[in-house]
């Protein structure tokens, strides 16, 4: 059985009478990327900040590396790396100086040159932080979380506000850390980020974990299906496809099926009846649809709430 690095039980957090976290329990296993997804205000950052020791829980237990975590857990702090949400570093320190600054607090140190190479920051190592783009700043932030070669890394919304290219750069860095066997607790409100990076996902909604598991389990457990889309299909022939097909305003016919076997059955019907179409597309249910099925809302609507 894989060792739990983080073990949370019945965690609650109230702010002036508002229940931000409503009794959640989960664990993060050694070497996995565990992602907590949900809209702004769902309770992701509060949860991760409690795990980092920035906030105190109202009730419940937080065990990190098997020990009850508190302000005094100096040993534990030596083994964790943190990138807080919306973090900005010292404007007038260079990239290398910033990493050295944080490195100086730890007993175990990872080579600064190694971190700079890992995050592809060689060209920018002597650049002042204030002169970096948003994407580079976030990469420096990830670098700061690595200076002590931590076993556990918290990344709180590391790509929020970044353009797709910069986001991809941060993802690449996380992928490398994952390959190094680091345990990563990642919060995000980008579903595709969790889909791409996470081994297991917890969907947070209104202070509760609405669902959790690996991506396949979440999809199968919460309305998972495939959609076969036939573009340029003659609508008169839809009855020949079976499975209650739908026709959208563009004339595209869509058929929902549960597994790949059913997809091949539809294709056999198309071939057998010599039905014509311009293009065929198969879509799998994604995390965003799972989120909708689980919470009854889209992530954008969740933000507004």
């Amino acid at each position, binding site marked *: 059985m894989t060792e739990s690095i983080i073990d949370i039980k019945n965690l609650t957090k109230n702010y002036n009478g508002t229940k931000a976290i409503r009794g959640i329990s989960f664990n993060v296993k050694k070497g996995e990327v565990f992602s907590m997804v949900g809209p702004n205000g769902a309770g992701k950052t509060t949860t991760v*900040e409690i795990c980092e020791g*920035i906030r*105190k829980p109202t009730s419940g237990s937080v065990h990190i590396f098997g020990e009850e975590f508190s302000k005094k857990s100096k040993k534990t702090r030596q083994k*964790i790396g943190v990138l807080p949400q919306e973090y*900005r570093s010292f404007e007038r320190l260079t990239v290398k100086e910033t990493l050295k600054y944080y490195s100086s607090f*730890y007993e175990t140190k990872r080579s600064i040159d190694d971190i700079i190479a890992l995050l592809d920051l060689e060209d920018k190592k002597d650049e002042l932080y204030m002169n970096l783009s948003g994407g580079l700043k976030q990469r420096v932030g990830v670098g700061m979380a690595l200076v002590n070669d931590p076993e556990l890394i918290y990344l709180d919304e590391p790509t929020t506000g970044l353009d797709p290219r910069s986001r991809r750069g941060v993802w690449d860095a996380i992928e490398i850390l994952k390959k190094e066997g680091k345990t990563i607790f990642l919060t995000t409100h980008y579903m595709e980020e969790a889909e791409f990076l996470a081994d297991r996902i917890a969907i947070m909604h209104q202070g509760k974990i609405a669902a959790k598991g690996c991506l396949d389990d979440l999809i199968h457990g919460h309305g998972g299906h495939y959609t076969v889309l036939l573009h340029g299909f003659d609508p008169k022939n839809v009855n020949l496809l079976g499975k209650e097909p739908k026709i959208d305003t563009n004339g595209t016919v869509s058929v929902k099926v549960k597994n790949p076997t059913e997809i091949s059955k539809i294709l056999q019907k198309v071939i057998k009846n010599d039905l014509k179409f311009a293009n065929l597309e198969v879509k799998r249910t994604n995390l965003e649809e799972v989120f909708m099925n689980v919470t009854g809302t889209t992530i954008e609507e969740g933000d507004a709430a």
Partner: protein
Amino acid sequence: MKPIAIFNDFLANLKMWYRSKGTVFWAILFPILLMLIFGAIYQGQGDVTVSLHVQDLDETEISEEFISNLGERLKIETIPSDVDGDNYISDNNIRSALIIPEGFESSIQSAYLGSNESIPLSLSLDPTRESVNGIIRGVLGGTVQGWNNDISGAREVLSYQETSVTAEEFKFIDFFMPGVIGITVMTSTIYGTIFRNTKYRKWGILSKLSTTPFSRWEYLVSKMLFMTFISFFSTFLIIIVGVFVWDISVTIDVYLFIIVISTAFAFSGMGMLISRFVKEEETADSAAGAVTFPQMFLAGTFFPLEVMPSYLSSFARVLPLYYVNEGLRDSMIYEDGSGALFNTAIIFSIAAVLFVVGALATKWTE
């Protein structure tokens, strides 16, 4: 051109402006504050209590009347007639004194009868307090002029000779330099602390630090070392300019070191306390200004407290910067050991309290 668009933009700007506390402070409160302070200082002399020590060696009705005339505009303190005036002034650290010579009444009576006799009064002033001296000269000159008119129709019967109360010839810059050190250390530590704490909290740096093994107390110590270093750097830079440019004679003793360190700790503590309640970077500026500007103008940096109305000079005595300024002057310029010890003890005590309270108020986490 769409007037409605211009109006909407104007309205939006107005909203943004009044929602920013910093701009409101600079645009409204600061000028009001300046107007109130300077208005109070420079308005009619009636409220101003500038004191003048007077030794009446004549002790006659006429000399008493003359003193009474001066007393209408100045606060008169009496020097006993049976002591040596110069020694008394020196021993009691008196900074403005008038000596009326023996024979004052008889000389005036002679002048009424047509004698050409003149009566020289002896006025001793501290040259470092030019703004106070100006008031004393104005009152004494006006009174002397009035009496001369009455006695002889403007011939100079009464006159005064001015001397310095100090053996050394101090200039205004001697008075001013310690004040510059005081405000420099105050502003750099208060602004530095408030801005740093507010920015670091807003940017997540304090949160980030709280997740590392670096402790809050280690952080405070390192910041105080830095503030103290900067304070000494500024202090010695000001002293170098004072010595080499203005030829100021400066004494560097242990009080100077204690006062500068205490000032750095006192105002850093004050900054930490304020930044506990300042949430936005924009507000930090006005919060720092609200604390530093009144002290800058009221704590005797630019002019002595005697030129202020009594209620303002009483208020100045509760401001930490007043004791910094006075202590630095006593230590560096006047070489007044007892004054330096007294003011150093006060600023040290203030620093201890403010720093401990400020440090306890500085939170990284909940």
